[in-house]
């Protein structure tokens, strides 16, 4: 099963999110109040490592492990980035969780976050329903 490796990557990712306290509502509040460097350090250093990695992949024209050319899809610019992005920010400060941490928080035993996941899924579904009527 080729998907098993993604399950394993997810497990490692969930452990990192938990051990670094990224999934803590308190850490997110601290970040939005500019009262500690922790979250800025994590996001900043992750971007630096990610950017250097992508630079190396592009320079050396590395292929993926199954021999395909690696694709970097462009993220198109539209108004949704601003409107949807601000909406997500409001929700991020409320729940203290972006989508990845929602799953890790459930694993940590906060079963009530299953409800938050359900509402997030409903939110995604409603977006799909009204997508064509929204400004983009």
């Amino acid at each position, binding site marked *: 099963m080729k998907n*098993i490796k993604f399950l394993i990557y997810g497990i490692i990712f969930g452990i990192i999110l938990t051990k670094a306290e990224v999934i803590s509502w308190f850490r997110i509040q601290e970040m939005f109040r500019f009262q500690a460097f922790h979250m800025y350090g994590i996001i900043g250093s992750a971007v630096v490592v990610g950017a250097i990695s992508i630079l190396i992949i592009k320079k050396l024209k590395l292929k993926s492990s199954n021999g395909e050319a690696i694709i970097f899809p462009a993220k198109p610019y539209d108004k949704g980035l601003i409107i949807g992005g601000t909406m997500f920010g409001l929700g991020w400060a409320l729940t203290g969780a972006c989508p990845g941490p929602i799953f890790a928080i459930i694993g940590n035993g906060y079963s009530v976050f299953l409800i938050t996941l359900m509402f997030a899924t409903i939110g995604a579904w409603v977006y799909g329903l009204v997508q064509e009527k929204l400004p983009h």
Partner: protein
Amino acid sequence: MLEFIKEPWPWYVAGPLIGLFVPLLLIFGNKNFGISSSLRHICAMCAPLNIKYFKYDWKSEQWSLFYVIGIMIGGFLASQYLMGGGKVDISTQTVQDLTALGVTDFSSYLPSDIFSWNELLSIKGFIFMGIGGILVGFGTRYANGCTSGHSISGLSNLQFSSLVATISFFVGGLIMTHFLLPFIF
């Protein structure tokens, strides 16, 4: 080494490790690191109805569902075997600010004053867990990505749109934290 694993991990360990998921997923899967799209796949799997946004081959995106189930298992393993989940050493200023708002429980990752099954039935709890969830799901899909897809993966690939998205995430977070939260408590 075991001692180190059991302590909370500092940013300079966790951040670079998270960054490594960008090349890891690109090289060993030709996938772009991103998590909020999994919400779309769940919708497409469970209730596509006749909605255009959900008419695509979600089965070819199954990897992302395996990935998020893995995150859940990882959270479980870290809390059970790696001492995850204790009191968070946030700054004293944050403790003061949140105490002033009415938070009393600082003993674990999430304050039980807000996040519990009992609170879910209160207006306050429903705003945090219910409305908050809707905003996360709707907002990330409208913005075509979340912290992983835009702020880490997109910024790593120097995408201008991801910079706009990341700034918008912070605008929303700052408005909620500094202007709206006092009214919800």
